[in-house]
């Protein structure tokens, strides 16, 4: 925004632009108000609104179930907290496998490709079922057959595949000339990766990885399929006992309270990165 110099009268151009700005602000506010009013006025006119309100937006059910949901959400946070660092480490390892250039180590490269192909290609819930029930079914003793261990492992292997692809795209985005320059300075291949390529590559992919971790935060709920009573399952129990879907709305609000700030933060990081370029 170019403001007129202090003390000087606004130019005709500035007056015109500010009028234009005021006008579009008014129009935007007006159209938003019309839409919001239409939703508020028209939806309750639908013949089934009373029934929907009673079963999805039931105040007394909400009040009774919300504290239990919050408590169950702690388990989601815990699962997320121990999965996220392991995903980052495994994802980086797979990405490095895929970037190996020494012909002797070609099997590593093939493994990396196969790994991402398989785990990006499978629905998360399928992996959770197969790993979460299948591996403990082999006869592991307690506590090694815990659904927390194997369910978390399923999340980790799937999300590591996505993270690996994101990191690889970051590595690929660093121009070949940088490797050449590093080698001409006498850096070994490993040192080139460690001191030249990765610091730049990882910084470039932070926003993309943020998005993956927001997705992970939601997918943690899938672990409920193999037993852990986290927020989604707890909401399901309440739903079943009260024949009312309001607990799901409560769970949705709790998820949004975490994911919306995280999404905004990722947006902010991305915008800042664009600004730096």
């Amino acid at each position: 925004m170019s403001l007129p110099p202090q003390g000087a009268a606004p130019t005709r151009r500035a007056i015109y632009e500010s009028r234009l700005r005021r006008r579009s602000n008014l129009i935007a506010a007006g159209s938003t108000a019309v839409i919001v009013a239409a939703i508020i006025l028209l939806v309750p006119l639908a013949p089934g609104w009373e029934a929907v309100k009673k079963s999805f937006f039931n105040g007394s059910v909400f009040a009774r179930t919300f504290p239990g949901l919050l408590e169950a959400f702690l388990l989601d946070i815990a699962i997320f907290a121990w999965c996220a660092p392991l995903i980052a480490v495994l994802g980086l390892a797979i990405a490095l496998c895929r970037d190996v250039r020494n012909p002797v180590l070609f099997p590593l490269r093939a493994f990396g490709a196969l790994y991402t192909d398989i785990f990006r290609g499978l629905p998360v819930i399928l992996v959770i079922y197969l790993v979460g029930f299948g591996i403990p079914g082999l006869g592991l003793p307690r506590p090694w057959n815990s659904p927390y261990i194997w369910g978390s492992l399923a999340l980790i292997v799937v999300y590591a595949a996505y993270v690996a692809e994101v990191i690889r795209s970051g590595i690929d985005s660093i121009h070949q000339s940088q490797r050449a320059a590093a080698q001409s300075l006498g850096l070994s291949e490993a040192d080139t990766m460690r001191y030249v390529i990765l610091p730049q590559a990882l910084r470039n992919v932070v926003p993309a990885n943020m998005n993956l971790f927001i997705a992970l935060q939601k997918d943690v709920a899938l672990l409920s399929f193999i037993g852990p009573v986290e927020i989604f399952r707890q909401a399901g129990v309440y739903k079943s006992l009260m024949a009312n879907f309001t607990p799901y709305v409560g769970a949705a609000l709790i998820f949004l309270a975490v994911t919306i700030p995280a999404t905004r933060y990722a947006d902010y990081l991305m915008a800042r990165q664009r600004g730096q370029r």
Partner: protein
Amino acid sequence: MKPLSLALAAGLFASVSGAALAAGNACTAGKTLTDGKLTVATGNPAYYPWVADDKPESGKGFESAVAYAIAAEMGFAPGDVQWVRTSFDEAIQPGAKNFDFNMQQFSITPEREEMVDFSLPYYTSAMAVLTTNAAVSNGVEPTVDSLKGVIWGADANTTAVPMLMEIVGPDRDPMLYGDNADVTAAIQAGQIDAALFDLPTALYLAAVLVEDGTVLGQFPADRSDNPDQFGLLMEEGSALKPCVDAAITALTDSGKLAEIEAQWLQEATGVPVID
């Protein structure tokens, strides 16, 4: 002569109008989804002994037989009964239903009663402990004290969850699953020691689905403050409810309901009671 012919004419008229109604009695007229037909919903899949072979239209299995008995009581011939499949969530969602009544071991609770209508109960179930012989030889005993210490599982969509808390009160939080198949998978994987089900379901799972499975014992229905009573689920404010309730009362009074129960659920009587 005149009174007689009048009476004859009246009798004729009555039989003609009776034939015109074709199906259903005076109570149900115009209250079903499709006139002259009764649409009954069951689970997908529906398990034995509630429905035999997942074929409710065969009339075999406890709930299937009860459905046909209720239909007959309300004046529907077996051919006028249609079956649809719904999940629990579909049964309780707001809006128009695609069934006249829904029958899949729905327990009657006051909270659910606020959202949907239930008929009078057609069965009162004991709760039973499903486990494996391996767990039993590892020292799981049919006493509440022993059962407190084991890792429990249950189907999250059933009233087994509050029952478990009320009757046993396990030391560790139970694991909950989306359906019977997942509970049995967890037992098989050794992730849980025992699971709480209604008795007939537990017997079926132990016999058929769980390898090495066994029913450790039962908690009789009168053990709980809120015994598990199954009712037909209907839309909130269903006009059909009085007709269904009348039919269930008639079946209970005539002993027909007990007869069907004896035919399909008789094994349920031989299970030891847990103290």
